[in-house]
């Protein structure tokens, strides 16, 4: 398997270069002078044009585009993501700061998604055509259709504004420092409830539908009939024989969730003012903070590529019919 991973990573390099190039050119095609971002409009008039030129030079923005491009690729290879215009700090450190917050949300949401989604999907498939099935199917479709950000706002309305049970936003309360240790934990958890719930529930709905379909397909396979014909108890037939097959595509789906882990919570982070990667990216876009925009785009794309690799590896591990020698192409 080691060789397989190395081979895939090497194959991914031209892809990554392609991604980096596209990112670079798109961002630099955008209208507007970065200097307008770096210095707000009113300060520009006061600042000596020569100073502006010096700053431009510092960021290498006076160079022709191809030169900037090469420098950018070179920097990327070294892991240098540049410096944010707004924060005047290395982008890498900003990202490192924000990642844990996003991970808190997305990891917990994925857990919720897996637990609720898979079990509901199984129940629904096993009890096909029953009322439970119809409720779950329709319910998950409805939940899946509701825009996440609106659901979040409505839940805030009900649980924070009206009932006062949960906080409206942020990761912790204003008086956090004054709380006891257990109080601190409770506070953090309280702030996590709504965002994780909204994120998790929406994806759980999708997972439940998918799980149901997969399991139904497997249940119509001949080996399930054969298992019953051998006299195996129904629980065994479903949970051991059918499920093991039905879960295969689901597992690979979770491999593909890698990019979600770091960027999927953009809208939720906005609603709850959650200081994560998504919010960083959105604010950077609004403020034309190009270094951050470039860095987060690259990151997102790299994660998708890695996620695909992860999904393929997971597939090969979980399905004995797939070996690492045969290269799988979607």
């Amino acid at each position, binding site marked *: 398997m080691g060789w397989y991973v190395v081979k895939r990573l090497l194959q991914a390099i031209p892809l990554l270069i392609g991604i980096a190039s596209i990112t670079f050119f798109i961002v630099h095609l955008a209208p507007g002078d970065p200097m307008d971002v770096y210095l707000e409009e009113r300060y520009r008039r006061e600042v000596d044009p020569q100073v502006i030129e010096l700053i431009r030079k510092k960021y290498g923005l006076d160079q022709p585009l191809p030169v900037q491009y090469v420098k950018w690729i070179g920097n990327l290879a070294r892991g240098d993501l540049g410096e944010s215009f707004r924060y005047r700090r290395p982008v890498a450190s900003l990202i490192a700061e924000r990642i844990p917050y996003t991970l808190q949300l997305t990891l917990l949401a994925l857990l919720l998604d897996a637990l609720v989604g898979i079990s509901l999907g199984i129940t629904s498939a096993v009890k096909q*055509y029953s009322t439970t099935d119809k409720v779950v199917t329709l319910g998950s479709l409805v939940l899946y259709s509701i825009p996440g950000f609106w659901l979040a706002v409505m839940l805030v309305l009900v649980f924070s504004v009206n009932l006062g049970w949960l906080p409206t936003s942020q990761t912790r309360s204003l008086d956090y420092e004054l709380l006891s240790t257990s109080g601190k934990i409770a506070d953090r958890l309280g702030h996590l409830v709504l965002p994780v719930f909204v994120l998790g529930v929406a994806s759980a709905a999708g997972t439940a539908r998918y799980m149901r379909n997969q399991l139904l397909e497997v249940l119509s*396979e*001949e*080996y399930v*009939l*054969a*298992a*019953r*014909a*051998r*006299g*195996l*108890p129904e629980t*065994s037939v479903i949970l051991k*024989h059918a499920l*093991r*097959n039905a879960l*295969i595509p689901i597992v690979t789906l979770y491999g593909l969730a890698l990019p979600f882990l770091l960027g999927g919570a953009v809208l939720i982070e906005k609603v709850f003012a959650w200081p994560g990667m998504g919010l960083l990216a959105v604010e950077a876009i609004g403020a034309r903070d190009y270094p951050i925009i470039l860095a987060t785009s690259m990151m997102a794309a790299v994660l998708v590529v890695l996620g695909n690799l992860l999904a393929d590896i997971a597939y090969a591990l979980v*399905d*004995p*019919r797939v070996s690492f020698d045969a290269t799988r192409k979607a």
Partner: protein
Amino acid sequence: MLLSVQNLSTYFFLEEGVLRAVDGVSFEIAENETVALVGESGCGKTIVALSIVNLVSAPGRIVQGKILLNGEDILNLPAGGIRQIRGRQIGMVFQEPGAALNPVYTIGYQLREVLQLHQGLSRREAEREAVRLLAETGIAEPERRAKAYPFELSGGMRQRAVIALAISARPKLLIADEPTTALDVTVQAEILELLRYLQDQYKMAILLITHDLGVVAEMAQHVLVMYTGKLVEMARTDALFRIPKHPYTQGLLNAVLRLGAGQKEPLCGIAGAVPDFLNLPSGCTFQGRCPIGDSTCTTEFPPLREIAAGRRCACYKVQGD
């Protein structure tokens, strides 16, 4: 009498109408004998097999009938009851080799599972018995194969593994649904040989479902001919092949190519096509394709009458001997 099927009817309730897959079928199988159930694809043979072990799923349902296994009605057993029968007293082999095998578990694992369930063997005992069973069904290097996954085996080997699974609990009846149809001709012969050997070893009865008359001639003592969900002829194999009575049976036998037949002899098929199950004509369903049918055949489906010792035929035009 080991198995006695009495007036079995299994219908499928579709939105387009009621499909009478099995309609009033009755037959018997004695111990240690092979009975063949023949008919074209889609005539309901497989549903008979599934009905016997009560594995017909929605929208199908067994609407009437009794199935007596050693005198006990197994259709109306309580929930856990039929599960005791499946695999233990009645084994099943399906058509697609290896489609009965779960692709993500090894052969050995699937065998062990059944052995531990039906015979209460320990894990170690089950492992050994699994290897023994694989060897008995003619799989070379059984220890190695036991650790293999189904996709690593050839079609013939997979079918042997499926047979091993089916006979693991030494059932009294083995239902084999087209066990050789999807295999190469040479492998077919081996599998049939295997079935005969196992039958001899374990004194099993076999219900052999097939559309291949050659297989019937080789294996079965009795033949049941089925058409559109009903039995139209029942006879001993040699009698049936020598003098088929029902026009449909005659058509089937005529359609078989004979080795040595001259090039000038035309290929005989049966005229017409199988009628739509949802729109069966009233009366005999073979009308329109039958060379001897007339207006008397249009009111009601002919009953299965005993026309000679051990022979029954469902045709108004056939007289008894």
